[in-house]
């Protein structure tokens, strides 16, 4: 089966796709096994060229909600979309959601995903009570954050959270939920004219649970880094009654719309003029400063409304480049934005956020500082040179890149950002000496010793 990541690049063919991890282990050859969720990693994390891929089944039946404790026990193949449809009407939300609902719970842990609330709530892994991990020897092991430091269980835990599936197949996850009164969010939207002001405003609004800024990367000169900053939290019933009284007829309603998916065979629609036009409209349409109620989909998952939106980049696909640099490195951030703007590569999606504290996972991406995410068409000229320069800037200040997004890096670029990589490799090897768990990402970045 031909597989790619969300960027639709670097396709490879897996010889076998099954829906059970034990079956996979029993039948796989020397190219091993990797689990695949919804295929939303941008690069090659959920592909295994010439090998076996496991896709665990999903479905709402895989969600068991403990309404007393506000904890959900969920099969790893279930998506956050399916989880939300079960829990939102009952007054609960997932502790962390990325920009799409279509990631599996297993993937959420394996990539240790973060959301707009990272600076307050940390990564998904921070809310996990325990998980069931299928190991290379076929056994199923329950691990969690409370194991004694230095124990095998603890080592396995810190290697698995953010471990990109290379320590084993996560089969079930038990995690804490966030209580909500309504299914709307109260959102403050501000238009900000430039980068320095943006960084100030992000810091000034840090008390808000959710915060993220969309940056217009085609703006130059004094408008460099002009952005739309959105901050907010779940709306209480009282606030919803004030902001959107009509929603009070069904305050916990959750019925996300999906427009028909984009067709195959599209050329790259996101040319520079198209992106410039889009950016201008998007920036101008944002209020200078206004508070409103927004739906979950509208605030957290706008792109989910267009099915298969990644096809808009055409056949050559696209890359997503995401990094974090320390808080003090605002000059580097400015230099990166200047370089991208100067390169003329049209990035329609550029998002800036401030991260909070680092989590447990040895290969977990977020650490305190500024994280910038941008999309680039893979076929654009000058991309390699641009990324090389950006890598130098990022690594030069002690920054790093996100494995769930990466599709182009060499092993040294990643190793430079993850000081715990050697320890991770040792733990991985300890529990998987025969290399039963392999992925294209693992081979490309030399993660599997």
């Amino acid at each position, binding site marked *: 089966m031909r597989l790619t990541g969300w*960027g639709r690049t*670097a396709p490879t*063919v897996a010889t076998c796709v099954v829906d059970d991890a034990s079956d996979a282990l029993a039948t796989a050859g020397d190219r091993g096994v990797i689990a695949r969720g919804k295929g939303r990693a941008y690069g090659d994390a959920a592909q295994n060229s010439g090998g076996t891929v496991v896709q665990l089944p999903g479905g709402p039946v895989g969600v068991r909600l403990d309404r007393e404790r506000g904890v959900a026990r969920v099969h790893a193949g279930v998506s956050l979309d399916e989880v939300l449809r079960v829990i939102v009407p009952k007054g609960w939300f997932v502790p962390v959601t990325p920009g799409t609902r279509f990631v599996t719970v297993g993937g959420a842990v394996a990539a240790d995903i973060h959301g707009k609330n990272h600076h307050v709530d940390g990564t998904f892994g921070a809310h996990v009570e325990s998980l069931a991990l299928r190991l290379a020897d076929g056994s199923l092991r329950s691990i969690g954050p409370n194991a004694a430091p230095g124990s095998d269980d603890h080592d396995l835990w810190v290697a698995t959270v953010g471990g990109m599936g290379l320590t084993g197949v996560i089969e079930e996850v038990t995690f804490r939920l966030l209580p909500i009164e309504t299914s709307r969010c109260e959102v403050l939207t501000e238009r900000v004219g430039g980068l320095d002001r943006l960084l100030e405003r992000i810091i000034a609004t840090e008390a808000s649970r959710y915060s993220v800024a969309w940056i217009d990367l085609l703006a130059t000169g004094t408008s460099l880094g002009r952005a739309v900053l959105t901050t907010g939290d779940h709306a209480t019933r009282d606030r919803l009654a004030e902001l959107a009284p009509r929603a009070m007829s069904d305050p916990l309603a959750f019925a996300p719309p999906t427009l028909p998916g984009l067709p195959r065979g599209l050329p790259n629609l996101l040319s520079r003029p198209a992106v410039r036009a889009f950016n201008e409209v998007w920036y101008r349409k944002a209020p200078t400063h206004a508070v409103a109620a927004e739906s979950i989909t509208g605030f957290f998952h706008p792109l989910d409304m267009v099915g298969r939106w990644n096809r808009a980049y055409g056949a050559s696909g696209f890359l997503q480049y995401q990094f974090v640099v320390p808080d003090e490195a605002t000059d580097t951030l400015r230099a990166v934005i200047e370089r991208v703007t100067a390169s003329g590569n049209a990035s329609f999606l550029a998002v800036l956020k401030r991260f909070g504290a680092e989590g447990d996972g040895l290969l977990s991406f977020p650490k305190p500082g500024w994280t910038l995410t941008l999309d680039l068409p893979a076929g654009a000229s000058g991309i390699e040179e641009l990324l090389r320069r950006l890598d130098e800037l990022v690594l030069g200040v002690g920054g790093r890149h996100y494995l769930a997004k990466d599709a*182009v890096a*060499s092993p040294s670029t990643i190793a430079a950002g993850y000081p715990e990589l050697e320890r991770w490799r040792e733990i991985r090897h300890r529990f998987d000496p025969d290399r039963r768990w392999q992925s294209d990402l693992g081979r490309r970045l030399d993660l599997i010793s």
Partner: protein
Amino acid sequence: MMNALHRPQTIVLLGGRSDIGRAIVAELASPQLRAVVVGQRDGGDAATVRNELGLDDDVEVVVEAFDAADHDGHRAWIARVVEQVGDLDVVVQAFGQLGLEAAGDPSAAAHLIEVNTAGAVSTGLAVGERLAEQGHGVLIVLSSVAGVRTRASNFVYGASKAGQDAFSTGLAAHLGGSGARVITVRPGFVRSAMTEGMEEAPFACDPSDVAAAVADGLRRRRRIVWVPGVLRYVFGLLSLAPEFVWRRLDR
């Protein structure tokens, strides 16, 4: 593994003395490159090859004795290479000989076919097998316009290339769906050590032009690359021409 920008981590060059082959390696090299394996008849020194190819110190360079006519040994040769460097991302088949004296010697002519055609078939299948097993990889075959319609001045060579070309396009179809790809490259006259002293044909180009076209074909997922591109149309027309017309032009 090849990354999303079509940069390979490993390259195998079958026919290390080929100027075009070397130009392709140099073109595809990048910070992502970690190993290059060069197969050439008389073996050779890795340090010299590294210099000649202009590769960084952190790229592993392996030189292995390789005989295109040793058909029985090709599978094992590929297996040895995989053992040393892991997955093969790009393999370049560049070992053809020109054999201009072949027309005067039946045995030499047959040997030319053994190297250029049978060698291409045997290595092509051995490489194709491995790439299919890996689920990814690209075989770049240096064919020639000489195989599209043979000229009197080099008809044995042309015949050998015609065989290689037909095989190569067929192999691409055979490997379809396996993740393995084949790119058949049809250059016109290329100014190189092999063609030194010969009269240039129209639309002549340099090895670096071929390399650039190959890199472009890799990115665009082409199965056939003509160099220069206009030859696609030139030979499109010429292959339809009646024999006597072609022979007039071939003078």
